[in-house]
């Protein structure tokens, strides 16, 4: 194990000073941040041109990112890690943290995903939010999000990542609660922030352990110090980072906020709660690969969390009738796949990020499609009121369909290239693990095929179950063009990146080798691939029978015990409420009572005891004691003054 840990550490430490356009990487954060500041501080004056300005700022960040990609491609693989020192941020005694950026294949992959998908969603929002009176504020928050997300992925130290980490959390909070005059939406925003804070607790503690053990918190120093660190500390760091990842990426047991987060406008769900922010946890684990490789217990925990979440999300996804909540459950499940892959170590890192990218495209595309459906159906989200929309919304149907094929993992669409590799990687290893994790990922693929086909058929096929006042129509081109572009990604990005191991070679300098052919799954690869495909067809077939061929009831039937549980998100809220919220409420209430009657009373009681009778305490409040006290105070002052004058 340790034999490849040390060279991995060195990989991180060899970052060279950024040159060319990469030296201007700070623009990535500065441009959208400037956009947000102009829109928020400019007030109503910017109403007319603000949204467009924010969109331009986002595309400018994409151009900078693209320039950096070209710049890095000009170097040999090992030289593609570039560091950029910005300024001394926190110089405090032993604790020294500089603000700096790390531009390497991993961060640049994210930069391009965030700015490209992000900018497309800006464009889409120009249409989607056209009639919202608070449109300017919406675009300001979107820009703020892009800035924070880019800071998160380009920061060169864990502490600076933390700034981006909570920054995206803030943007997410603001956008989930964008329509917060609706009380449940305001609660959803709070829930997201608080669940994320539980994760942030993990982030804080992980950084503290790093500082305690290594004296530093930047990636290069931490990676370099891993070799000499003690096992317990590494495991602790790994587990606390995992807690952080669980909060941000809605992984078990901190998953409960994601479904409610669908309260935000749909472009937000597409960008933040599907394509980018929620995948930050996967980024964190892969970025910390040196730590996880050296802490097998923490690594196993990552795999287990991923496996539980991928099934959890898939099961919940089967029972949801709300199109956005079904997609949210699917996001959770797909991130479970990525998390699992990241936990597999060097055999999985590349595919975790690969799937993250393809997922970013096809899931964002499907969310935008869902938004387009809502746009045409008076903002309805209940799929039992949809059906046979394929004719009315041809572009939406086609783009959504490509996303659907991609997530199912049907070759040659994008998802196949990334997900199939994760399933293969899950079958690698010794003992019980490959069998359990491999079979879980295969089972997950079958359930995914079922619930995504259910979603697709219920919305676009079968018979019309539209409400009487519905007149579905295709969305304007400002919305459909981004959908079409994302659909291209859903179709071809996977193939493009998989050809000639292009993406694996690109990412290798960061995460090290090990994903290649030297490992063999416990089952032959064709068996895995064809077996998975067979399961996918089975899942999709069952969905076809029940949701296309058969009639879909307009109101949900009672359902089995499992269905009912899945509709309630497997009782996640009830568990949280019973274990945390209600006891917390009681604790707070009784403390408020005790503070007034108990502690304050005790202090008052002590005064009574000293005074001899409680009557005297009453005099305190009558003002007698006040005059004593004041006289005493004044006396001290007068005496001091007199001595001074007479000296």
């Amino acid at each position, binding site marked *: 194990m340790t034999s490849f840990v040390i060279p991995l550490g060195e990989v991180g430490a060899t970052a060279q000073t950024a040159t060319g356009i990469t030296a201007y990487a700070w623009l990535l954060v500065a441009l959208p941040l400037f956009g947000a500041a102009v829109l*928020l501080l400019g007030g109503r004056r910017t109403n007319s041109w603000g949204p467009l300005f924010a969109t331009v700022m986002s595309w400018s960040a994409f151009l900078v990112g693209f320039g950096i990609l070209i710049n890095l491609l000009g170097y040999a693989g090992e030289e593609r890690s570039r560091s950029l*020192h910005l300024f*001394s*941020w*926190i*110089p*405090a*005694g*032993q*604790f020294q943290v500089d603000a*700096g950026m790390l531009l390497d294949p991993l961060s640049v992959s994210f930069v391009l995903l965030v700015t490209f998908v992000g900018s497309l969603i800006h464009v889409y929002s120009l249409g989607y939010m056209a009639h919202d009176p608070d449109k300017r504020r919406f675009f300001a928050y979107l820009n703020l999000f892009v800035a924070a997300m880019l800071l998160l992925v380009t920061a060169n130290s864990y502490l600076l990542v933390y*700034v981006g980490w*909570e920054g995206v959390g803030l943007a997410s*909070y603001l956008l989930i*609660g964008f329509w*917060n*005059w609706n*009380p449940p939406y305001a609660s959803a*925003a*709070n829930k997201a*922030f*608080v669940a994320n*804070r*539980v994760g*942030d*607790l993990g982030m*804080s*503690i992980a950084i*503290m352990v790093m*500082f*305690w*053990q*290594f*004296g*530093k918190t*930047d990636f*290069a*120093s931490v990676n*370099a*110090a891993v070799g*000499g*660190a*003690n096992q317990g*500390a590494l495991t602790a760091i790994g587990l606390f980072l995992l807690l952080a990842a669980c909060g941000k990426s809605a992984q078990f047991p901190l998953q409960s906020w994601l479904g409610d987060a669908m309260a935000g406008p749909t472009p937000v769900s597409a960008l933040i709660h599907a394509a980018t922010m929620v995948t930050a946890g996967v980024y964190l684990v892969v970025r910390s690969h040196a730590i996880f490789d050296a802490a097998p217990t923490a690594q196993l925990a990552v795999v287990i969390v991923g496996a539980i979440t991928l099934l959890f999300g898939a099961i919940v996804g089967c029972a949801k009738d709300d199109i956005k909540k079904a997609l949210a459950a699917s996001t959770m499940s797909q991130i479970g796949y990525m998390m699992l892959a990241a936990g597999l170590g060097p055999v999985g890192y590349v595919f975790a990020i690969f799937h993250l990218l393809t997922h970013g495209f096809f899931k964002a595309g499907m969310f935008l499609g869902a938004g387009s459906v809502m746009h045409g159906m008076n903002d309805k989200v209940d799929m039992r009121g949809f059906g046979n929309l394929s004719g009315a919304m041809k572009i939406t149907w086609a783009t959504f369909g490509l996303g659907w094929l991609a997530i199912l993992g049907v070759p040659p669409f994008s998802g196949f290239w990334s997900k199939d590799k994760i399933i293969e990687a899950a079958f690698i290893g010794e003992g019980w693990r490959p069998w359990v994790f491999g079979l879980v990922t295969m089972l997950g693929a079958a359930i995914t095929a079922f619930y995504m086909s259910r979603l697709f058929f219920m919305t676009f096929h079968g018979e019309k179950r539209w409400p009487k006042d519905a007149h579905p129509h295709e969305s304007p081109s400002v919305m459909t063009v981004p959908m079409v572009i994302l659909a291209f990604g859903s179709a071809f990005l996977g193939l493009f990146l998989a050809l000639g191991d292009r993406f694996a070679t690109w990412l290798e300098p960061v995460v090290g080798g090990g994903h290649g052919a030297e490992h063999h799954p416990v089952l032959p690869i064709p068996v895995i691939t064809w077996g998975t495909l067979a399961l996918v067809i089975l899942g999709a077939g069952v969905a076809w029978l029940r949701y296309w061929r058969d009639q879909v009831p307009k109101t949900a039937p009672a359902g089995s015990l499992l269905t009912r549980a899945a509709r309630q998100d497997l009782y996640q809220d009830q568990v949280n409420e019973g274990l945390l919220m209600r006891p917390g409420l009681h604790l*707070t*209430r009784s*403390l*408020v009572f005790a503070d007034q009657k108990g*502690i304050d009373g005790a*202090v008052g009681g002590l005064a009574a005891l000293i005074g001899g009778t409680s009557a005297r305490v009453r005099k305190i*409040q009558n*003002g007698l*004691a*006040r005059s004593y*006290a*004041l006289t005493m*105070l004044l006396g001290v002052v007068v005496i001091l003054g007199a*001595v*001074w004058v007479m*000296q």
Partner: protein
Amino acid sequence: MNQFPWLTLIGALPAVGALVLWLLPASVAGRAKQIALGFSLVTLLLTVLAALQYQPSSTERFQLVEQHQWIPQFGVSYALGVDGIALVLILMSVILVPICLLAAWRDLPADQVGREPHYFALMLSLETFMVGVFAATDVFLFYVFFEAMLIPVYFLIGQFGGARRQYAAMKFLLFSLAGGLIMLAAVIALYTQGPGGTDGFLVSKLTGLAMPQSTERLIFLGFFLAFAVKAPMVPVHTWLPDAATESRPATATLLVGVFDKVGTYGMIRFCLELFPGASQWATPVVIVLAVVSIIYGALLAIGQTDIMRLIAFTSISHFGFIVLGIFAVTTTSWAGSSLYMLNHGFSTAGLFLFAGMLISRKRSKRIPDFGGWQRIVPGLAGIWLVAGLSSLALPGLGSFISEFLVLAGTFQRYQVLTVIATSGIILAALYILLMYQRMMTGPKPEDAVGTPDLSLREKWVAIPLIALFLVLGFYPKPVMDVINPTVKTILTSVNISDPAPAAGTVEGSSK
């Protein structure tokens, strides 16, 4: 020895302003606030000039020193001087005063304009004592300022406060006087242990004394109790919520933001520096109480329905962090605690003063009386959220850095306690966001439609505070450069060194 008397000037100017206001003819009483603001701004300017004279890299621990005999019979001197920590706190105080004056501009109704000179004079006189207490380098002089501060605060609460102002002012005074009297005894006892003479109360003469262990511990306790009441630590905190809620927001800001800092400042300056042995002896109890304060204050804040009480409880939680960092005694935690004192001052000012803007519009300080206000006053809701985020220590805002430094520094010594303390960040998210949800979100309140959003004056209250949150969050280096050498000097003088990183051969590998 004696240079230009910067500190005396800075301290005296507000006092002169207060005298001018008290002597102001009734016919021009309406101009009192302008005069007060003018004096406070000149004081701020002078302080900035003085701060530019301060050289962080100098080997002189105290700079801008002044020293004169005052009561040589008792060994009392008029001795002033600042180190990095004191300078930063004085700067914070003189920045906050003009902001508070501006926020208090319309505190008194038009028919009470005759009381305005007195109201603003009290705030200016408080500024004098605040500068004095941070600048004093004579223990007795410190004590005099420490007690003198009570007088303006007492009148500010008792004469200008809310419905239960008499009760709150009295409770405040009794707690403070009790702490002060114990400290007086400790001050005198400390003097008897020192070399005596006509300048026997100078801090420099009383540092590093060889005392019998029990004596040292008793004197330490005398100081510590007074500071613990002032800083409010659980369980001697109960005066603060009452005092804060019955105060005007500007008074509450100065009370919690500056006045209470004397407690934590005193712990650094007097407890740890003068009694290192006793401090070490007391540390286990103190840090447990600090962690209790963090969690307890936060839980109580969640349960409040009164905005001002809620803010007071958040401060109890934040003071817990400051005390924790002080008693963990690492360069990191001390830098964090010193910076926290500064950030907390601005952060609390934001909360109290913006709350004041809301309260003056709604004429209620009950949280349930609000709801949906973001729809009516979006600007005010925005700055209210920013102040809240600063209080919950969002990265990118100043308080995050200080809170994280305290925790990271403390973690080097006490891992389990730090983890418990860190869970305070979850509670902080709850107390701020639940409050924001109850006050600002929800359907538009039809009864409040037409309430004006931020006025120009209110914008000028908010702008400097929010600018400070951001500057201290992204570029705290100028402040750290002033604080760090002082922290290092003190820790070297009490002979405490940082724990070394366990796997720490990383020098040179970082870029």
